[in-house]
């Protein structure tokens, strides 16, 4: 029992009522907050306001004035509706990967797997794929239409759940591994999932146990290499709006809507006890564990939550495009999202958003534009749009070399990345001039080759080194990216 400091008034309330009144207070407090910000940081607030207004109204403006602004007011081509929608989609993914890699410091190279899972969830639940049954519920499709058809706003939570569950399933056995091994395992998962989707087009099996028999013949589970299409587009009945790829700028706002929730969610997590736990784990996992943080569970949470963001993005992408296939989900996509996170500023929500917007623009608008122009000047010159990963690869190498903290750095990550050099060297010096007992320990290790040499350095406050603390693959005391 803790002795609490009892306050006279309790401003927090209880339960749903308390939460709603709190949310209400925040919303109604926005004008006051804005006025205060305007007073305290006038130039910055005005600049941000103008930027936000432009960004939010851009899709509408763009549709009205189309190409006339492009390359006249603005020297480069302006992104079209599809590109901007994908900026939202990738933005959500960048925020998700930022939770995994930026907040918790875990390198996930197979993030695309969860993107795929989200997409195929939408495909299974909003298409004629399961032709032999018909479940139509609140969807923009006549009753009796073959397949399962649920509305988009039900599919998104389901995709979150399923992607998050797979994130937890992948993470549970693997988060004990060291950083680089974990990266490889996630890479593997990122490869296996699309392969599974590609190859389950013709499933036949016979299983019988006593009276129980399960037999399927030539079931097309996942659509195979051709994928699944058409997928129902998100639909808003009240306004009779369809949010698919031929619907102009409306899908952008759907994406923006989801993105806003993603940002809020991530920000709230960041400034909570779990956000602090992630920071601590990233900084010194061992000390965090010693201070009572259940590091395995906390890392697992980061992994699963990050995966669920990709689930949202995937379901949006599939519903927007109206189709999905395993070809959409390659290792390069995982890396693209990673570059967005690194380029923009690892650990910083606004940074990674910037990275997402910038790289989507480069990938979907800028490089194709350059390709077009080059085509006219020098037709035999290779098309940069097809070699986009040449640039992205160079960007990665350059970023790691020159600015690993990204362009909008998170102050802490920047400090960690810089400090690592100095502290690392000092720690090594300390190790070399350690006391006699270290030599004894090493003699013991030499005498018994069954001891695995531990690369993780001495355990807490040790004069004597002990290689048997945890096996080297499980405890990683070094700072990770």
């Amino acid at each position, binding site marked *: 029992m803790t002795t609490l400091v009892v306050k006279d008034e309790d401003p927090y309330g209880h339960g749903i009522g308390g939460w709603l009144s709190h949310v209400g207070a925040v919303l109604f407090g926005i004008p006051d907050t804005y006025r205060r910000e305007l007073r305290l940081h006038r130039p910055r607030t005005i600049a941000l306001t103008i930027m936000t207004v432009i960004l939010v109204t851009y899709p509408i403006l763009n549709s009205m004035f189309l190409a006339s602004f492009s390359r006249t007011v603005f020297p480069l081509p302006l992104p079209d509706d599809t590109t901007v929608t994908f900026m939202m989609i990738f933005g959500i993914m960048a925020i998700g990967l930022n939770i995994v890699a930026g907040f918790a410091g875990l*390198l996930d*190279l197979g993030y695309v797997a969860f993107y795929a899972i989200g997409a195929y969830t939408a495909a299974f639940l909003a298409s004629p794929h399961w032709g032999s049954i018909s479940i139509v519920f609140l969807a923009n499709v006549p009753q009796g239409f073959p397949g399962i058809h649920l509305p988009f706003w039900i599919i998104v939570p389901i995709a979150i759940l399923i992607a998050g569950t797979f994130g937890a399933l992948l993470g549970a*056995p*693997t988060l004990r*591994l060291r*950083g*680089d*091994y974990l*990266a*490889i*395992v996630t890479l*593997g*998962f990122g*490869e*296996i999932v699309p*392969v*599974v989707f*590609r*190859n389950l087009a013709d499933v036949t099996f016979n299983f019988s146990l006593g009276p129980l028999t399960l037999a399927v013949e030539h079931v097309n589970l996942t659509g195979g290499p051709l994928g699944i299409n058409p997928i129902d587009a998100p639909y808003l009945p009240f306004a009779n709006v369809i949010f698919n790829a031929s619907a102009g700028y409306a899908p952008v706002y759907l994406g923006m809507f989801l993105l806003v929730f993603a940002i809020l969610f991530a920000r709230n997590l960041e400034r909570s006890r779990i956000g602090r736990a992630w920071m601590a784990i990233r900084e010194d996992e061992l000390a965090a564990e010693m201070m009572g943080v259940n590091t395995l569970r906390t890392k697992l949470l980061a992994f699963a939550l990050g995966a669920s963001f990709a689930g949202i993005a995937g379901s949006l992408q599939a519903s927007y495009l109206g189709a999905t296939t395993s070809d959409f989900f390659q290792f*390069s996509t995982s*890396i693209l999202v*990673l570059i967005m996170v*690194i380029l923009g500023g690892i650990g910083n929500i606004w940074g990674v958003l910037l990275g997402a917007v910038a790289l989507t623009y480069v990938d979907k608008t800028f490089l194709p534009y350059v390709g077009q122009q080059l085509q006219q000047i020098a037709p035999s010159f*290779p098309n940069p749009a097809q*070699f986009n*990963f*040449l640039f*992205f*690869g*160079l*960007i*990665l*190498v350059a970023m*790691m*070399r020159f600015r*690993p903290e990204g362009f909008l750095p998170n102050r802490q990550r920047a400090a*960690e*990345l810089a400090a*690592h*050099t100095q502290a*690392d*060297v000092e720690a*090594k010096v300390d*190790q*070399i001039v350690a006391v006699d007992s270290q030599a004894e320990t090493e003699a013991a290790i030499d005498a018994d*080759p*069954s001891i*695995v*040499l531990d*690369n993780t350095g001495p355990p807490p406050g040790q004069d004597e080194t002990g290689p048997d603390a945890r*096996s*080297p*693959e499980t405890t990683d005391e*070094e*700072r*990770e*990216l």
Partner: protein
Amino acid sequence: MDQVIQTFIIGLSNGLIFALVALGYTLVYGIIELINFAHGDLFMLGSMIALFLIASVFGLSASTPALQLVGVILLVIAITMIATAAINVTIERIAYRPLRHAPKLAPLISAIGMSFVLQNIANLIAGPANKSIDNLFPTTNLLSVFGIETIAVTFQQAFVAVVTIPLLIALTWFVDKTRQGRAMRATAQDPDTAGLMGVDVNRTIALTFLIGGALAGAAGVVQILYNNVTVWNLGFRFGLNAFTSAVLGGIGNLSGAVVGALVLGQINAFSDRYLSANWTNAIVFAVLIAVLVFKPTGLLGQQLADRA
């Protein structure tokens, strides 16, 4: 039964090629704890360079006289090995050495970037389609000499063994017996102390990359002469298999890499034959994940380069 043996022989040849590439992974990991993502793509470059030399520079074909064929192939091997070694050392210099004191994941990410760069360079120069050469070897079955008709060992397969096995032996000798080899082992164990003992750590690491690169180049030559075809993303499949071999055998352990490679060669061959090539990559990944999760030290244990 004949088919099983035949599959086994195919697996053996693949395994030997994997072994050469796996050694590159395991050497580099042993010395700087970096999973060199770009190594498989270096191997692909090796096969591309060899293809270029064979087809365009030397103009070899099936009708080239045998002696000339052998001589030129040796020359191609030498040139390719030098080229890939040089490329590897350069990559180390620009992409990994500056990150030596950065957090461990930084060079890994850099290696991923490098991998994409190498792939795209190959794609740029050679185009996206498969590139092939004509079969240079006679197609007779070597085993027909012994009267065996149902199982075949081709000249290509013999060639693979003839090139890879001496290289493996040479490497083992180098690591065990020479001064530079000792320097490599010492640096792998403890770079700072090795430095204090007078070992030039930078040069030793560069040497490791040089050797790994050379082996990848040799593997590339063998590959193109064995399969007669190469493509810009060849490195992915071979890299995956080679890395899994290294992990399976115990990363950092040279003989483990070879043993793992032989095992993976068989896995590939039998999966391709009896399942479907569509699933082989997934299976290899599954093996990799299983090893990392259940026995990360590998079959022969994670011993450093000196316990080869």
